[in-house]
């Protein structure tokens, strides 16, 4: 299997992957070597203990062919939150589509470009940035991403700039994406004191095609900056989605994220936030909804390396049918990170007999003057709450839906941009109406 990827890599290097600056070629080669050395993870790896990736390891995925199926603007329209004027980069099967994107009006100090264009026009500009986020090295999928990275969104916001509207990166898989792998790489750099909202959407136009999305997003938050990052994963329910988000926060910065996982036969998100200096604030919210045979896996890690930092994390899951969810939340507090205040919560709702949850909230604390708590629950809806609603004339089915939605809404409501919040709320509501 690794040989298959080697061959694909050789073909890729001879083709489009051969272009670009030398540092990038080295990065790709190192990625391929690393991947060849370690291969795909197995359930013997603690990090993948409950998430078998054999479905990915079994089939060799291929890179998307050059001219991909043309999409009409109308097909992408429903995913734009009703705001066509928001700067949006659209990638079709991993390749930038200028026709579907919109980025004509950008405030001064803001650059929003596809990675392929940046590598072409300013080959050295990302040399010290791309691929330089610590824990990216070495895991199978990030290595594979490094080997095959080609396109993605590059957003940089200068110091002090406040974005008036969110930036949206859309990754669409077309109907003919069967057997294709895409390796988007996004780089977001936010200057000191800037204020930025951005959204990453991964979606599919049908629910049957089986492909692999293996995305990596690197975010750097400048000191005193405020960043909101929304990540919506609505891949085909036959696809595999592997995501890795790596966040570095400078002094006094605020980073908040909301991740929603709806799609994928197998989905995995690693979300790592690290503070590089003191007094940072990190807010991680997330929701995963699974049905049928889906498996949704979320691994978060918050590294408190400096004093006076705060982190707050709430992840919720709603599971039906024979689906499974895995949650692992790590909080590391170094000896010097005194006065850390960290709270982590993971709550899971099992709505069907066959659904399963593996959750592991993990704290590793080496400082004494800290406040760290975590909590995890697995259970079903409260019978008395059902009864209360029924006694007020609400039918049981509606009561159940209402209570389930209320459970999810607690995290969805943390999205600050109203149109996004409302659209995601509707999306969750619709999904609950279908599936449960």
């Amino acid at each position, binding site marked *: 299997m690794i040989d298959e990827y080697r061959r694909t890599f050789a073909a890729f290097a001879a083709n489009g992957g051969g272009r670009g600056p030398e540092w990038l070629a080295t990065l790709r080669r190192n990625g391929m070597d690393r991947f060849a050395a370690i291969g795909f993870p197995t359930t013997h790896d*603690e990090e993948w203990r409950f998430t078998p990736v054999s479905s990915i390891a079994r089939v060799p995925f291929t890179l998307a062919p050059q001219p991909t199926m043309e999409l009409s603007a109308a097909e992408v329209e429903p995913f734009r939150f009703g705001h066509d004027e928001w700067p949006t980069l659209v990638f079709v099967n991993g390749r930038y589509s200028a026709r579907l994107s919109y980025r004509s009006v950008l405030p001064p100090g803001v650059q929003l470009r596809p990675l392929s264009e940046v590598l072409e026009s300013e080959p050295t500009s990302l040399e010290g940035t791309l691929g330089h986020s610590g824990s990216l090295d070495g895991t199978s999928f990030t290595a594979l991403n490094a080997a095959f990275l080609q396109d993605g969104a590059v957003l940089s916001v200068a110091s002090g700039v406040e974005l008036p509207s969110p930036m949206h990166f859309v990754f669409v898989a077309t109907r003919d994406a069967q057997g294709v792998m895409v390796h988007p790489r996004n780089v977001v750099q936010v200057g000191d004191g800037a204020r930025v909202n951005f959204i990453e959407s991964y979606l599919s136009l049908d629910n049957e095609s089986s492909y692999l999305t293996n995305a990596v997003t690197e975010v750097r938050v400048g000191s005193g900056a405020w960043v909101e990052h929304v990540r919506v994963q609505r891949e085909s329910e036959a696809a595999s989605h592997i995501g890795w988000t790596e966040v570095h926060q400078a002094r006094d910065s605020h980073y908040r994220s909301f991740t929603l996982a709806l799609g994928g036969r197998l989905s995995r998100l690693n979300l790592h936030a690290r503070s590089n200096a003191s007094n940072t604030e990190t807010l991680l919210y997330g929701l995963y909804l699974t049905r049928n045979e889906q498996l949704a896996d979320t691994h978060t890690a918050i590294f408190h390396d400096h004093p006076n930092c705060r982190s707050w994390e709430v992840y919720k899951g709603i599971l039906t049918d024979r689906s499974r969810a895995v949650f692992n939340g790590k909080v590391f507090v170094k000896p010097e990170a005194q006065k850390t205040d960290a709270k982590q919560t993971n709550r899971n709702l*099992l709505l069907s*007999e066959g659904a399963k949850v*593996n959750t592991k909230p993990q704290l590793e604390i080496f400082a004494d003057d800290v*406040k760290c708590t975590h909590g995890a629950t*697995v*259970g079903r809806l409260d019978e008395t709450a059902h009864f209360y609603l029924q006694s007020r004339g609400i039918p049981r089915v509606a009561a159940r839906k209402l209570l389930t939605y209320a459970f999810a809404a607690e995290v969805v409501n943390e999205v600050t941009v109203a149109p996004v919040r409302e659209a995601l709320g509707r999306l969750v509501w619709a999904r609950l109406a279908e599936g449960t």
Partner: protein
Amino acid sequence: MSSPVESLVNREYKWGFVTDIESESVPKGLNEEIIRLISAKKEEPEFMLQWRLKAYRGWLGMKEPHWPNVSYPPIDYQEIIYYSAPKTVMPLGSLDEVDPKLRETYEKLGIPLNEQKLLAGVAVDAIFDSVSVGTSYKKALGELGIIFCSFSEAVREHPELVERYLGSVVPMSDNFFAALNSAVFSDGSFVYIPKGLRCPMDLSTYFRINQANTGQFERTLIVADEGASVSYLEGCTAPRRDTNQLHAAVVELVALDNAKIKYSTVQNWYAGDENGVGGILNFVTKRGKALQNAKISWTQVETGSAITWKYPSVILQGDDSVGEFYSVAVVNGRQQADTGTKMIHIGRNSRSTIVSKGISAGRGNNSYRGLVKVLPKAAGARNYTQCDSMLIGNRCGAHTFPYIDVQNATASVEHEASTSKIGEDQILYCKQRGLNTENAISMIVNGFCKEVFKELPMEFAVEAQKLLGVSLEGSVG
């Protein structure tokens, strides 16, 4: 750090003395011959020897586990003496016949072996190195049909019970250390409570490692027949030595329908010196199986050992069965503890409660590792876990690794964990009221552990509180 505090830090491990007593040991090292020798020395029936050999052959193919969050020098299994016994041991008519030197040792340790002086109303089985040296109250218990004796005696006198239950909860192939124990275990306690009987007094075992270079591999098996109940206490100490000594015990509890077993441990093995030299490597497998409506409760206070690797677990096999785990683990100096529990819910409406309190001081590292597993058939299963850590100083660490695996939608599992420190304001408050700093801390720590201590039998609770005081003395400057 003030000087009285300093002197307290350097206070010696009180139980670190060595008893000068002649003992008889087998040659060091491990092979089938040694196992045959141990078995022969103990005059065991054939099935026992075959069982040991099977375990040994299984063990040869196993690897020492390295997943716990602990580090220690590699263990050379050929350098260990697997059997050591005080020479004077022979079948005893009464405890008065026990070697006076041994009696003296146990008196030093504060263990009442002398029946006349025994006021506490606790029956004691004392294990010295590899063998049991005496069991008190045996006769009185025997009249009720309760079997409380050393494991060797049980193998000889009640082979049918041993054969039926040995390895039924912890199979010989369960893990590396359990397999090793199954091959070479020397002695331990055996308890059988007949149907419907409530054991009238607490039963207790006291373990003492004395010989150098020996490993202690005891095996305890407690069977509570239908509707029976028993409370069992375990205590342990070892001399101070500058080499690591291995302690790999196995404890199996079987609670048949409607039975109750309460197992309390105060573990105070030698922890090594302040630089982490010496100390006991405590690798213990403890597990209970609760059948219908049965209850198993583990309470442990872990203050000793250089390394603790121990997960007292309950297999909640029967419907409506109950499992409990209350733990206080203290690490100071360079101690490392990786401890917690496993609650495996199989029966319908099975319930479990986990309360774990970890205290880290000095350069100690304390990990809570737990598993709550609800299998698909365990409808209505319920678990509540609370796991709190307290850190004293910033050179120590607290870690939590709770695994929650739920496969039934009607189950309800809750896990909570927190980390805190002793607040300066709390100490100030106590000092205002006339307590000195040491006493204030001791009081705050005891308050932190109260939920666990209240589960301990009275005499143990007092001992545990004192022990905790000693373990933490001087850790706050």
